[in-house]
């Protein structure tokens, strides 16, 4: 993915290429960087890199990616190439694997109606569970994976049909 500093304008090509346990290999502008990622109870993580430990928190909003590292905060714009996540400003029509992992649990079935924020499925990656949720009210069109299945980065796992609220 491409991450662009919202203000500075610097653009970086960042890709998670591999992980094992708490180790992660990230390609930053063609350069492989190995780091440790240790999840904390408060939802943040410690990134171990070059003999130092960085305490980070992050969030993804519709328009940007927010990160704090100690007292500093950074805002990135995700310059998306590749897979459709719905157009900008539209809710996603697919639940896509954000990283390679194992489908741990699926909370929905075909034709279920979900609210915004409802959990859809849990993916295990890097020994950590990530819950993927509906971004807006939707009907489940098709569940394309099953529990226990390994998926690669970018694989469409669930298809959604948006419904308008109160319809």
């Amino acid at each position, binding site marked *: 993915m491409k991450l662009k500093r919202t203000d500075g304008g610097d653009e970086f090509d960042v890709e998670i290429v591999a992980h094992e346990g708490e180790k992660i290999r*990230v390609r930053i502008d063609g350069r492989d960087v190995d*780091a440790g990622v240790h999840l904390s109870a408060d939802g943040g993580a410690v*990134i171990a890199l070059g003999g*130092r430990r960085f305490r980070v928190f*992050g*969030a993804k909003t519709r328009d940007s990616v927010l*990160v704090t590292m*100690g007292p500093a*905060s950074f805002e990135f714009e995700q310059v998306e190439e590749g897979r459709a996540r719905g157009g900008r400003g539209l*809710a996603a029509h697919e639940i896509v694997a954000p990283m390679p992992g194992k489908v741990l649990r699926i909370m929905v079935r075909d034709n279920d109606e979900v609210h915004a924020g409802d959990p859809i499925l849990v993916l295990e990656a890097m020994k950590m569970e990530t819950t993927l949720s509906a971004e807006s009210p939707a009907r489940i069109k098709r569940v394309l994976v099953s529990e226990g299945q390994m998926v690669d980065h970018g694989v469409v796992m669930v298809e959604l049909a948006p419904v308008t609220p109160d319809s």
Partner: protein
Amino acid sequence: MKRREIKKLLVANRGEIAMRVIRGARLLGIKTVAVYSEADAKSPHVALADEAVAIGPAEPAQSYLNATAILSAAQITRADAIHPGYGFLSERPEFARAVHQAGINFIGPPADVMAALGDKIAARKIAERAKVPVVPGIETGHPAEIHAFASRVGYPVLIKASAGGGGLGMRVVESESQLESALEAASRQAKAAFGDGRVFVEKYLPHPRHVEVQILGDLHGNVVALGERDCSIQRRHQKIVEESPAPNLSEATRAKMIDAAINLGRAAGYCGAGTVECLVDGDDFYFLEVNARLQVEHPITEIRFGCDLVVEQIRIAEGEKVMDPRTPIGCAIECRINAEDAAHNFRPSSGPVMHLSVPAGPGVRFDTYLVDGLEIGTSYDSLLGKMITHGATREEARLRMASALGEFSLLGVTSTAAFLHDVVASEPFRRADLSTHFIEEFFSGWRPAPDGDDLDAALIAGALAASGFFGTRGVRAAAKAASGAPQRRSPWDDLAGFQPWRA
């Protein structure tokens, strides 16, 4: 004098200072009433108080500056005292007068004292009467006199609005040719901003420090001082780092300043907590103004003197004598964490608090109203919280501050924490090379520009965040609120099996 016991205190403010005042009142067993605007309905000061009254829409003029609404709230709740905090109505004599006339105790100086000190020209006269040095200056009158004055003290000179404050209505005049048009423009601006076009001209001190003395006066005519604070580090004439005591100040100058502040307080008939602000140039000091209220930076004085200034304010308003200040201990520093982007000329920022990490430990205090999930808007001032550290020495307080700010983390709102961390950790701050130009001298063009491993770590965190790695519920809900996506249903929707309400 008869003691006027306070049983219920209305706090006419919001944010961290409302929390601070409520805590002070609670210590004395006094019930508290919070007031809040529509924008602050979910703000923590509302939850903390014993009672809460909505006073109007978000716009300050219709809520926190709405004297009528606030007085009504006090009457409805039968509050017998009002604490104005700082800002908003705290220095408006007409409000203090209206509170008094309603038979309610105003926590602050009498309205006429406040009025005299709030007018810069009148305050200068009080200072001169108390033999407190003032910056050589002249009230505007005949243009020839002003020209003569400016040539005598030398350019540049400073034009100030008599009714101004907080750096508003000030302009520097570099040469004689600009004087007349600058006077005209300053007067016009002052008239527009403060409804009072009077201006005066002062000698301009090119490299001053800002040092102020905390005073407390009581209804019996006693005035004491609780040391001084150096507040030189400012952005846009507003303080961002304060410390006590003022470093590199000779004992003789310190003693003279404190005496002058006490004399001025006595001359003004001062009552309650107040601050005498001075400019310091080497060993000379000049009276600047009196802030007739509790200051934002009061905690550094509290920590050194082991006292609670809100409690003192309330006791003074009840008619008690001022405390006997104890010998101060150690050094204290305060950093104001604002919702601002220091890399872009301190422009205001806003957003939901998605995650908050607050430091703790010996000698660390954090006065704030930040809580997870709080929506920070732009209707009010940008102060989010005040980090305060104490140490046996200045260096200990400084290192503790650097460490505390390093532990601080706020996701969702751009804050000045990283900037303040760099300021406190810097060599100019370590050697206390202080002046009101500190930021432009040493930190102009500051950017949170990580490189090397720092940048890589930030990018890895960015890639993880973009992949949905930090997917806790609170963060996700807040992120949705920020993105404008449909929010989670109201928690009320999850309550089932209740009958409709019948009154």
